[in-house]
């Protein structure tokens, strides 16, 4: 009996707006000009938020921070595709997602300054506290999506993790469950090419991360992560599929981390300036500016006014964050369980807290 091929895997890549700001004429109508403009403005806001966070860290006003520079399209484009009813499970490098969803920026600054109250997601949004251990939140999104399906709610969950996270067992176990139970979940890999100092090529021998979905029985797609239109469309399509009982999708956003891993890292120890500069030339705002100009939606004055507005809003949020009263020490015990245990009551009393 000759060998026969019993399964073939195809991995598609989506790009709508290229690095020169040229849009694919067949694909671009699927994302409205209005949406692209909103994305552009949210990306500027995310960049300003990020820049200010880096400055605050240098001034000792917040702690260690993970920059999103270069990943604004991957984050904003995907986040905007979700509705507020959907549930999101971010990692620690997702400021762009949170800002795009309207998560109060002052709370994010509080969080990065070491105040857990910043992760108390406001009502109206369903965003889980960012996962600090890498990739371990992938099954949570699957579980929430599974619950939506079991309860007959027409919603979806989305989970953000990086190329490093795709090496974790949690990633595979989460994807496997999602495939088996056809859960309405979108797995958003932010492949920014580096897991601290380890390059993507050392993370997996596979050509793409997108293809890892195939082994779990559903579709994976790679998108140009610096093309906000492609990221938005791929996420919208995945959500449409998820909410129509079509099951999960893995989207690999192919992007680049232009900054250090965190403010505690020095990326010059492990990657070349040339590489970073080559990617800087492909960063997502450049092409979007060119595209918007082509369709008559961009002028220097417009961008300046968007930036100014973003800066004013971020500055006001920082002010709010820094004026916020310090946390009650009792908080560190209070939320461990739904109710205080007798031992905890004793500990609070002995410490003179929460009277």
């Amino acid at each position, binding site marked *: 009996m000759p060998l026969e091929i019993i399964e073939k895997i195809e991995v598609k890549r989506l790009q709508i707006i290229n690095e020169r700001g040229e849009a694919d004429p067949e694909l671009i109508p699927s994302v409205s000009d209005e949406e692209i403009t909103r994305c552009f403005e949210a990306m500027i806001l995310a960049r300003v938020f990020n820049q200010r966070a880096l400055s605050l860290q240098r001034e000792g006003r917040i702690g260690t921070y993970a920059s999103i520079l270069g990943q604004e399209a991957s984050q904003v484009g995907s986040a905007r595709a979700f509705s507020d009813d959907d549930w999101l499970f971010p990692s620690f490098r997702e400021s762009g997602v949170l800002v795009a969803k309207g998560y109060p920026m002052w709370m994010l600054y509080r969080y990065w300054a070491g105040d857990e109250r910043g992760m*108390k997601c406001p009502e109206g949004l369903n965003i889980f506290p960012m996962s600090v251990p890498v990739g*371990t939140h992938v099954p*949570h999104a699957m579980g929430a999506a599974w*619950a939506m399906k079991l309860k007959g709610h027409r919603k979806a969950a989305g989970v953000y993790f990086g190329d490093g996270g795709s090496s974790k067992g949690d990633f595979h176990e989460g994807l*496997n469950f999602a495939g088996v139970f056809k859960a309405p979940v979108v797995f958003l890999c932010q492949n920014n090419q580096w897991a601290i100092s380890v390059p993507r090529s050392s993370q997996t021998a596979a050509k793409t991360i997108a293809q890892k979905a195939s082994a779990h029985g559903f579709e994976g797609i790679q998108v140009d992560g610096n093309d906000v239109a492609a990221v938005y469309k791929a996420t919208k399509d995945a959500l449409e599929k998820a909410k129509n009982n079509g099951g999960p999708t893995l989207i690999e956003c192919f992007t680049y981390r232009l900054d250090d891993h965190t403010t505690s890292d020095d990326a010059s120890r492990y990657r070349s300036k040339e590489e970073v500069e080559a990617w800087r030339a492909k960063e997502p705002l450049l092409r979007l500016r060119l595209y918007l100009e082509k369709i008559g939606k961009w002028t220097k004055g417009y961008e300046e006014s968007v930036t100014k507005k973003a800066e004013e809003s971020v500055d006001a949020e920082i002010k709010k964050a820094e004026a916020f009263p310090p946390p009650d020490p009792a908080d560190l015990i209070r939320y*461990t369980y739904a109710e205080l245990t007798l*031992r905890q009551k004793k500990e609070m009393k002995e410490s003179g807290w929460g009277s």
Partner: protein
Amino acid sequence: MGKLNIVGAINSALFEEMGRDSDVIIIGEDVGRDGGVFRVTEGLLERFGPDRVIDTPLSELGIIGAAVGLAAYGMKPVAEIQFMGFLYAGLEQIFSHAARIRSRSRGRFSVPMVIRTPYGIGIKPPELHSESSEALFCHMPGIKVVVPSTPYNAKGLLKSAIRDPDTVLFMEPSRLYRSIKADVPDGDYVVPLGRASILQEGKDLTVVSWGTMLHKAAEAAEGFDAEIIDLMTLKPFDEEAILTSVKKTGRLVIVHEAPRIAGFGAEVAALVAEEAIEYLKAPILRVAGFEAVVPMARLEDFYMPSLERIKKAYERVMRY
């Protein structure tokens, strides 16, 4: 009222809770058609259907990780892990997520799930099927740890665990699953978490134990005027019951099968040392597992605290 063993009592708790609350679902390996490797979930699939009694892939991390998301969204997952040794694959999900989501989100999200797992030696299974790792979980704030010892409290405690708003690890003594039959009320009743039960009152000596070892500790107490406390919930544990008893008897022996070093007995002993040392007439003794890996069948009987070892401890404290 009917006579049930612990398997039947847990099964009955699951039946009743699933009937009472449509958000309660069972997930795990072989929990559906097979009824679980110990048959604890037998009949539930037929009664509640495949959307509520769900066989999952063979993936302990996946089961617990998905249960975190299920619970956070509003389901009440009761996850079965076939043996306690296999729970280790899910430790990060429990320690880094389930235990701290409420705190990390300052109360916005919580993980009200139950993880059921058989624990302990005594059934001569393969390796890693006999772990008794309660202390690991008791050390981690944010989860509760429950160990039933009788059909009556197994049913009542599991019902409380399912209704509890936090993550509960429910450790089922596999050795006792079918070895004790006792009266269990048919209808709804709960045994509250966090409270110990006095199995037997006594004046000379307080014995604290739980799960499988409780029965050995009680058997060894024949001939002693011992007060025997079944702790039942290890986290949060009933400090008051222990202190009240020790203040009366002046002597304390703790019996557990888990290794002695940093075992939960150390916590009980430290509590008494801190809060009631002036009442003690004798040193606090622990009868516990050795500083050794849990053995396979041939050495099992040497590992488990024997009646003789327990009696010796009772005799020793009585010499003071």
